[in-house]
């Protein structure tokens, strides 16, 4: 199975030049992965560049503007112009900054964001670079590494705004990592694997998207994902109206653009994982009837399906950013610790209970790595998810949180402002 996933497609090993000069093993395990990596980086980085353009265009439509339309037809070359501008900008390092760390920080952020791309199943069969057994854990581990770049960058800048931004970012990312990981566990109970490609295959076998079993988990994951990538309404680490630019206040030129690319890349990864785990990845009902599974055309179509789903989620990211105000720091923490984490725990508990009940009634059966679900089982699982899990969690948490008052920072002590009264 894994060999099948990792090996090059048949047409690749039949390419005339490669076939004559290279061993098939070398082709499969060295040349093909390198081709994959090169292609993926090229596509993803271009995509990120155009995501910036897309964001600017979408925000322009939301805000009744036109958006960039000067460079190239309809402003299509704008990302190129932006890139050139950032490259030829003066590379400024503040005098009192910690030079070494200042230089390394954006690289860490960027690398941490890009490494996760390796395990994401972009499509069926060969359209994934590596399908490691702990794919999901790998992504969670690596993407939380990115916060290190932000903290180091903020600290090394030797600026108070950058420091505050970095500290906010650290607290925020550590807090939201927890519900994000917990939200995925519910889905894991259905897919029974951590390898991302297998998760998609499981969903294909069950002919369902996990989001129907896990509406609450999907919601929690999406919200924590937005917070994790420091996007609005959770963009506190770089809140421009409070902290100027947060952790990258002192960065300019290409170093800044590394942070920028890292932000967009992690946005892409968050939506890619949401698609893989909850929205069926490259699986689209009916696709396997139209095209022969495993054929090159099918793989390309599956990549298209995956890309479409990811872009829809990215649009949600943009949409939220341009229509919502920003949370305050303590409210953000409150949302994480009072709502997200208890909700994700409740989700795990309720999902597990429902699964056990379903198993007792013989609605589902475990078959090795797979679940087999009867028609009544589908109705039961989806029904309970929407009718019991979501409202019950909502009601319980609402009851609990209604009793605890909002974290009111203001102590009620009168300030000496009644001087005028005393004198008169």
């Amino acid at each position, binding site marked *: 199975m894994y060999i099948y996933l990792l090996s090059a497609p048949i047409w690749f090993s039949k390419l005339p030049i490669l076939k004559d000069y290279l061993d098939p093993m070398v082709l499969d395990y060295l040349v093909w992965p390198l081709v994959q990596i090169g292609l993926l980086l090229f596509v993803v980085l271009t995509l990120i560049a155009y995501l910036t353009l897309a964001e600017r265009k979408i925000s322009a439509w939301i805000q*009744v503007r036109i958006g960039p339309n000067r460079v190239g037809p309809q402003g299509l070359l704008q990302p190129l112009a932006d890139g050139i501008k950032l490259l030829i900008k003066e590379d400024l390092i503040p005098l009192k900054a910690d030079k070494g760390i200042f230089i390394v920080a954006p690289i860490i952020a960027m690398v941490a964001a890009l490494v996760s791309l390796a395990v994401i199943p972009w499509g069926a069969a060969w359209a994934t670079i590596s399908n490691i057994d702990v794919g999901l854990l790998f992504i969670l581990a690596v993407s939380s590494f990115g916060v290190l770049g932000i903290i180091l960058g903020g600290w090394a800048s030797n600026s108070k705004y950058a420091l505050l931004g970095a500290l906010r970012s650290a607290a925020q990312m550590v807090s939201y990592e927890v519900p994000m990981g917990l939200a995925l566990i519910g889905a894991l109970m259905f897919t029974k694997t951590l390898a991302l490609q297998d998760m998609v295959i499981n969903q294909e076998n069950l002919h369902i998207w996990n989001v129907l079993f896990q509406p609450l988990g999907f919601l929690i994951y999406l919200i924590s994902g937005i917070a994790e990538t420091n996007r609005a309404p959770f963009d506190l680490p770089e809140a421009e109206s409070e902290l100027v630019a947060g952790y990258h206040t002192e960065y300019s030129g290409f170093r800044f653009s590394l942070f920028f690319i890292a932000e967009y890349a992690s946005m892409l990864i968050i939506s890619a994982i949401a698609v893989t785990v909850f929205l069926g990845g490259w699986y689209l009902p009916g696709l396997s009837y139209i095209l022969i599974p495993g054929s090159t055309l099918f793989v390309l179509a599956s990549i298209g399906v995956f890309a479409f789903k990811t872009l829809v989620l990215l649009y949600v990211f943009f949409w939220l950013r*341009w229509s919502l105000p920003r949370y305050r720091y303590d*409210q953000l923490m409150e949302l994480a610790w009072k709502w997200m984490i208890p909700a994700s725990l409740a989700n795990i508990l309720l999902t597990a209970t429902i699964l056990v009940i379903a198993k007792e009634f013989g609605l589902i059966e475990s078959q090795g790595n797979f679940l087999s679900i009867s028609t009544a089982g589908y109705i039961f699982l989806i029904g309970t998810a929407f009718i019991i899990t979501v409202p019950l969690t909502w009601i319980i948490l609402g009851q609990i949180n209604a009793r605890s008052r909002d974290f009111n920072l*203001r102590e009620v002590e009168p300030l000496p402002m*009644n001087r005028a009264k005393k004198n008169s």
Partner: protein
Amino acid sequence: MADITDITDITDIIEQENESNEMILSMGPQHPSTHGVLRVVLKLDGEIVTDLDCDIGYLHRGVEKICEHRNYQMIAPYFDRTDYIAAVSNGLCYVETIEKALNLEIPLRAQYLRVILVELNRLSSHLLWLATHALDIGAVTVFLWAFREREEILKIFENFFGARLTCHAFRIGGMTYDAYDGFQAQVKSFCDRFPKCLEDYETLLNTNRIWLSRTVGIGIISSDDAINIGLTGPPLRGSGVEWDIRKAHPYECYSDLEFDIPYGENGDTYDRYLVRMEEMRQSRRIILQALEKLPDGEVMAPKAPKTVKPPIGEYYHSIESPKGELGIYLVSDGSAQPARLRIRPPSFVNLQALRQMAIGHLVADVVAIIGTLDIVLGEIDR
């Protein structure tokens, strides 16, 4: 925590940095959301503000001193540049002060035109406030939506005076020009469209969970404190004091027009937001009434003197500018130049409340509170 009441000077605050765990953060003068060049020195415990002080004067141009060396007609354009967001209101305050000193009666048509223009200016000023306030809290879209409507008002101004921002609208004794052809239609069509736009903003903000949690209970100031500090305008009315100079001491033709004074209950940022939103509706109401009642006739008083020489004496006149009570205190020695001219800017007085409002809140709230006070540094520093 040190006794915050003892600290009144920035140097004091900075000296204490090394003695405690608290951080001193100099916010501004180059900061995206201090509305110009205000510098706020914050003393932070984590992110909680334990003390703050405002440092002003980065935009000082010495308008009051310049006025002592100019003829009365030459002074008027300087007032368009004190509060450049509400240039028309500021110009009105100046010409009215001089008219009061000269005891000049203004033709009725000029009065109505003045009211229309000043209320339009109030709308544009409040729209700019809404835009920047929402931007400070992170709602970027409201910013551009509000600018779309402000643009229409500025177009009317451009047609009328030839300038968009620092429009020199009025002359001592009336107005230089009568309304241009199609002025009434243009204002009318704007007023017809405007409520829909206000609803648009309110859909984005009024019941938005995040907007509520960012504004409700933030920067509370009681009505007693507000009066003691001398707050005027929406910050005062937000605290529940029903005080508007347009009603209390009507000038121009405000006594002929019907309008309500909105006022809040809790004196927090949300109430001030609601007050300003309602004020925009009331302004529209005033404009529509004034357009209906607009009489024909002259726009310049026939008795307006060529050389303005107010009789010896002291004069004070104040109007309700979009930001609060804008007053001018004039000492005339009978010559063609004022002996002393002092401006009572609403922003300057309203800014005094910042410290009391912001202590105990977070850094993010300081930004929101600066936004809700609606200050203009051109007016504070003069």
